[in-house]
């Protein structure tokens, strides 16, 4: 059941990313919905779940990007793993955790994506304009985290303390 909900979450976010948020851009920049969802899943369920969700979600959005297939998959998996490893030390009850994680995770994830994409042959990414785009995207990610974290919590189902 949990896997079905995660699958539905991924499909929904891919549709929103490609159909809605291509129009809702701020300074020509949009949020990375699946990256934020990966961070949310890693926060809820730990490193392993974060890595797997990030890999599948990244693969899904890679189908709609012109960058090589696997760049987002690898990026989101690494970010999900990293957030999952460190999440045990985080405050659980703060309502600001979602935007803080979404923003910082979005910025770090964006940087990792640029690095991997450059290694995979994407041209001209190490310019000043890229840093500006990363910062704006991170801010947007922090904003959408308010909406995505509850859905990710629903998709993850009940907490299983044995998995932490």
């Amino acid at each position: 059941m949990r896997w079905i909900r995660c699958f539905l979450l991924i499909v929904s976010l891919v549709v929103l990313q490609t159909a809605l948020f291509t129009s809702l851009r701020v300074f020509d920049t949009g949020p990375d919905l699946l990256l934020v969802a990966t961070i949310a899943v890693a926060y809820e369920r730990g490193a392993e779940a974060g890595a797997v969700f990030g890999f599948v979600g990244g693969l899904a959005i890679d189908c709609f990007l012109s960058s090589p297939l696997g760049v987002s998959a690898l990026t989101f998996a690494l970010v999900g793993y990293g957030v999952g490893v460190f999440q045990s030390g985080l405050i659980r009850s703060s309502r600001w955790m979602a935007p803080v994680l979404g923003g910082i995770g979005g910025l770090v994830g964006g940087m990792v994506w640029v690095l991997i994409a450059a290694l995979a042959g994407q041209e001209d990414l190490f310019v000043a304009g890229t840093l500006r785009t990363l910062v704006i995207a991170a801010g947007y990610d922090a904003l959408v985290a308010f909406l995505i974290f509850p859905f990710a919590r629903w998709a993850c189902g009940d907490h299983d303390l044995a998995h932490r």
Partner: protein
Amino acid sequence: MAVYRRESRRRPIIALIVITSLALISLDRGGNGAIATVRHAARDAIAPVQGVVQDAFHPVSNVFDGVTKVDGLEAENAKLRSRVSTLEGKLSRERGVGEEYSQLARLLDIPDVEDVTGVVARVIGGPAGNFERTLTLNKGTSQGVVVGMPIVAGDGLVGKVTDASRTRATVTLIDNPGLGVGVRTEQSREQAVTQGRSGDKLLRLSFIGNPRTKIAEGELVFTAGVEGAAYPPDVPVARVVKIDRQRGELDPDIFVEPLVDLDKLVFVKALRWPPRTSSPAGDTGTGS
């Protein structure tokens, strides 16, 4: 004990994910057909749902645009009125010259962009990511839009089709880093290549044939149309807006602005180029 089991299980999983991702990247870079098939299937599968979502949220997009772009509208309106009156004057002056050229072109059987047929398509989406400049069209291979077709709008060149599934096509815009367009300048007819830059709407004019050629601000650049080119000749591309001579007179940095507003396209035309009477040109991936 539980902690040790968790850690030992995580490492193989993350290792497997990393290896699989690297393998996929390598395969896609190598042009693997199976990966392209998967991509096209995903795009075609999700296309009907995308259409419903876009229609449902169209009012939201309009409100969002109205809020985020209102400041620029008045200035743009004034700029456009000025350009229209300048162009109307130029059109009148060039009518005589244009007619003579048309007669000569017909006599010499020179192909012209006006003679090229194509497929009109609607722009239904922008880039899904933040580091690419692409558009999605509502037509694909089943409606005659194939990879390599040049894309034009009323004012000039837009880009090139770089991916096409059965019902959707992806256009890479001329300001996308990595897509160069072979051009010639208006006055001196010097050949060069435009290059997009990440996070910047201006294109750099590079590989200028003769760096000592005087190129002035305001000058237009058109597609060069050399033999085997990916684009028809003489399609307007951009206007020179900045010349930076910090590195010296012989090596200026010349920046051009696309004539087409690439963020406000609704309808575009995919050209069947080269015309079917000649053999198709190879797609070099960087234009010419």
